[in-house]
């Protein structure tokens, strides 16, 4: 009988359950995908160009687990808030606490099991299609990635079912400790937190101190090593929470006594915020962290993506060098947007390669300067033949034009007559510097492939900036991919966290806005009121998240050598991300309007 009643209660809130289930399913699917990447040994081995790769993936996994734990706690409290009233009713009707407790336990667990099962299924599908799509978009190749990986399935199932068992126990304890009356009126209870100035001040100061420690830890990742991340995560979370707790309430209280609060619905808005400030601080903390992580991950990801070509510029004075070009290669070369090209005839004899001085005078070799640290600069220059003979022939870029099985030939420059007499294997080499590496990626890739087929490429060395780019791309590819992947994952979780909050507040708000309607509040005023309230919910974590990211990017400084910097070009990434966030706000708002605004006539 009670089971039936419970089922009826769930049916009544189909939409809310669907959202909850969808959120949990997404989370499980994301976790599976990541676990698949992070634990798949064959995959890691094949792609571990960087020794840190598995470390990076491991760190990502830990981060994702932590966030997942918080996320499930949040989802669970949403579930509980939905069911409290029903449970209270059952108890009032005479159901024993034990019986209701069993019900709670089972309900939570069943929901969790379903979400996990569907989530893993979805994760399999997404691994197959989505990951491939993302990699394609980024122009990356990650070898040995299979969609089905049993250890990842087990890891996901164990983590999620484990978490749901914990959640069920938590619900059980929560419920058996609350009085029936409280359960019944859970959504009407006035929760009026008191302002205690001294305590508030301590909380605020403590919050700022924690945040400062967190930001410092991120910047000092070089000295702190792996302790930096967990330290920052804990302190920033605590700091954000305390800061929100200390300030939001005080600000609301302060505003409430102004004349502004007595105009139109402003007082109502402040009342609403004050009323739910405790729920809000928790939610805002989580959302601001998710926001920061999503934005941070995507910024880092796209940072690499944007900066690689820039970095590649300094990796060579020419983009590519073609030896004894074939007609097929010529066709590809015609497609390039050439900034500078030169063709030289070489004669290779013994360990020496001879060049024709006339050719070098007519087409001077472009050279680059080096900083004291040995870092190459992007700026290029040419020299007179005389000066070039003296110092330019030893440059790596020039030496690399003639590579043999044993290594580089020693270059020597002969006058035209001497060169004509010189014996040796004749090779012509064409160097091309393109205007924009990114623009000519396709033909360069094919050219490089053809060149490598004819001449075995040297190991441990790249010739031209294209090859340099390719190597760097593989080098940082994993990191970049993880950035995008985690960014999208966190964004999805953020979206569903906000959705939970919004939906769990909807029934109460429906009632309140209906009251306002009766009292004679204009429809537009209510629309604005809702837009402001939800806007604040989006704005606060947005601002906090941006601050977190600006500090947090410090963490990537040691990983990026100049001229790369984690802060370069973040403007456009931020703009796109914020654009997405605004769109999500508008969608949420439209949804909330539809749920909460009263129809214009009674029904």
């Amino acid at each position, binding site marked *: 009988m009670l089971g039936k009643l419970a089922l009826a209660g769930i049916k009544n809130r189909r939409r809310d359950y669907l959202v909850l289930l969808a959120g949990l399913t997404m989370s499980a699917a994301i976790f599976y995908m990541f676990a698949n990447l992070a634990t798949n040994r064959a995959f890691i081995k094949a792609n571990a160009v960087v020794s840190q790769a598995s470390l990076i993936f491991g760190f990502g996994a830990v981060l994702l687990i932590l966030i997942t734990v918080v996320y499930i706690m949040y989802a669970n409290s949403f579930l509980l808030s939905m069911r409290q009233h029903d449970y209270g009713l059952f108890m009032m009707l005479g159901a024993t606490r034990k019986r209701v407790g069993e019900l709670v336990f089972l309900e939570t667990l069943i929901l969790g099991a379903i979400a996990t099962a569907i989530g893993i299924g979805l994760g399999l599908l997404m691994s197959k299609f989505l990951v491939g799509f993302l990699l394609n978009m980024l122009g990356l190749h990650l070898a040995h990635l299979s969609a089905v990986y049993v250890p990842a399935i087990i890891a996901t199932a164990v983590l999620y079912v484990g978490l749901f068992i914990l959640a069920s126990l938590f619900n059980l304890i929560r419920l058996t400790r609350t009085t029936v009356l409280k359960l019944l009126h859970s959504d009407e209870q006035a929760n009026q937190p008191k302002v205690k100035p001294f305590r508030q001040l301590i909380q605020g100061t403590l919050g700022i101190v924690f945040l400062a420690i967190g930001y410092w830890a991120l910047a000092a990742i070089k000295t702190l090593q792996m302790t930096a991340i967990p330290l920052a995560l804990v302190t920033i979370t605590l700091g954000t929470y305390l800061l929100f707790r200390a300030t939001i309430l005080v600000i609301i209280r302060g505003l409430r006594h102004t004349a502004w609060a007595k105009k139109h619905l402003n*007082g109502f808005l402040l009342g609403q915020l004050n009323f739910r400030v405790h729920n809000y601080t928790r939610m805002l903390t989580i959302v601001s962290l998710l926001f920061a992580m999503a934005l941070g991950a995507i910024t880092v990801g796209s940072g690499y993506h944007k900066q690689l070509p820039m970095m590649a510029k300094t990796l060579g004075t020419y983009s590519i060098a073609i030896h004894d070009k074939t007609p097929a290669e010529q066709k590809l070369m015609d497609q390039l947007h050439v900034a500078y090209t030169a063709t030289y005839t070489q004669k290779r004899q013994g360990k020496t390669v001879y060049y024709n001085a006339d050719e070098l005078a007519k087409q001077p070799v472009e050279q680059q300067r080096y900083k004291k640290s040995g870092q190459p600069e992007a700026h290029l220059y040419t020299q007179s033949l005389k000066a070039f003979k003296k110092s330019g022939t030893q440059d790596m870029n020039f030496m690399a034009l003639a590579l043999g099985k044993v290594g580089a030939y020693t270059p020597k420059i002969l006058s035209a007559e001497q060169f004509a007499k010189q014996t040796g294997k004749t090779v012509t080499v064409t160097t091309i510097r393109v205007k924009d590496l990114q623009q000519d990626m396709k033909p360069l890739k094919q050219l490089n492939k053809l060149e490598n087929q004819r001449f075995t490429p040297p190991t441990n060395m790249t010739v031209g900036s294209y090859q340099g780019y390719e190597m760097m791309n593989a080098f940082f590819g994993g990191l970049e991919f993880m950035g995008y992947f985690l960014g999208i994952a966190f964004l999805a979780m953020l979206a569903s966290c906000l959705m939970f909050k919004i939906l769990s507040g909807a029934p109460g708000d429906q009632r309140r806005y209906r009251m306002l309607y009766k009292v004679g509040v204009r*429809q537009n005023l209510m629309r604005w009121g809702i837009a402001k309230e939800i806007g604040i919910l989006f704005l606060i974590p947005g601002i906090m998240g941006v601050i977190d990211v600006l500090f947090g990017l410090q963490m990537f400084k040691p990983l990026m050598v100049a001229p790369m910097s984690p802060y370069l070009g973040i403007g456009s990434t931020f703009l796109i991300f914020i654009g997405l966030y605004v769109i999500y706000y508008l969608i949420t708002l439209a949804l909330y309007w539809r749920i909460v605004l009263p129809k214009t006539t009674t029904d």
Partner: protein
Amino acid sequence: MTTATTVVDVHGLEKTYGKANERQYKALKDINFSVAEGEFVGIMGASGSGKTTLLNMLSTLDTPTKGDVIVNGHDVTKMRGNQLADFRAQEVGFIFQDFNLLESLTAEENIGLPLALKGTASKVMDQAIHEVAETLSIADLLQKYPAELSGGQKQRVAAARAIVHHPSILMGDEPTGALDSTSARELLDLLTTINQKQAMSVLLVTHDPFSASFCQRILFIKDGQIGSELKRGSQDRAAFYQQILNELGTFNE
């Protein structure tokens, strides 16, 4: 058509629930009556007789199928959108059975809401709130939240909110329905005071003869139609109460 002393004038009012292609139910049939300025009128009828429906038409919470409703010179059936909201905010004060207080606001903020909507200056607002709180003896409750108030106190706060902006008529839909007998009586006394001291017209809907006995005139409604009418005249409340009971005896046969 409306004289200066008529606050509510209802002509041939009909309300049919359900769309044309659905099963329809006629909740109100050809209702005609008027309320004079300063009058205390009761509308009495059994549960389901159409009282709430009627009040919703008068307060523009719902639209009639047919007929005219004129409140303080405004034909409410012709209003749309913002006009309706503004009308509710300015012309009527409403007391609901379930209080309809916003639990996120203090009593003071709840009472001030109609003034805030009008954009009243905050000084004027404070003055008005304290005046009305004095009248309803809730001055010491102003800083409390609804959850901290008893039913009777809540309803007094609601009454304060209903009259703080001096509407042309105060309407109550079973305002004593959720109150114990002492609180109910206090509220009815208050309504009487408001009616007499502030000369505010009051329209009270109830199924309870005791509540009805506080009115000057009672319209009996049954199955969506107004049957008979009783006037208190000069008799005292107890005698009027007896008369109502007698009337109910015959009315319900």
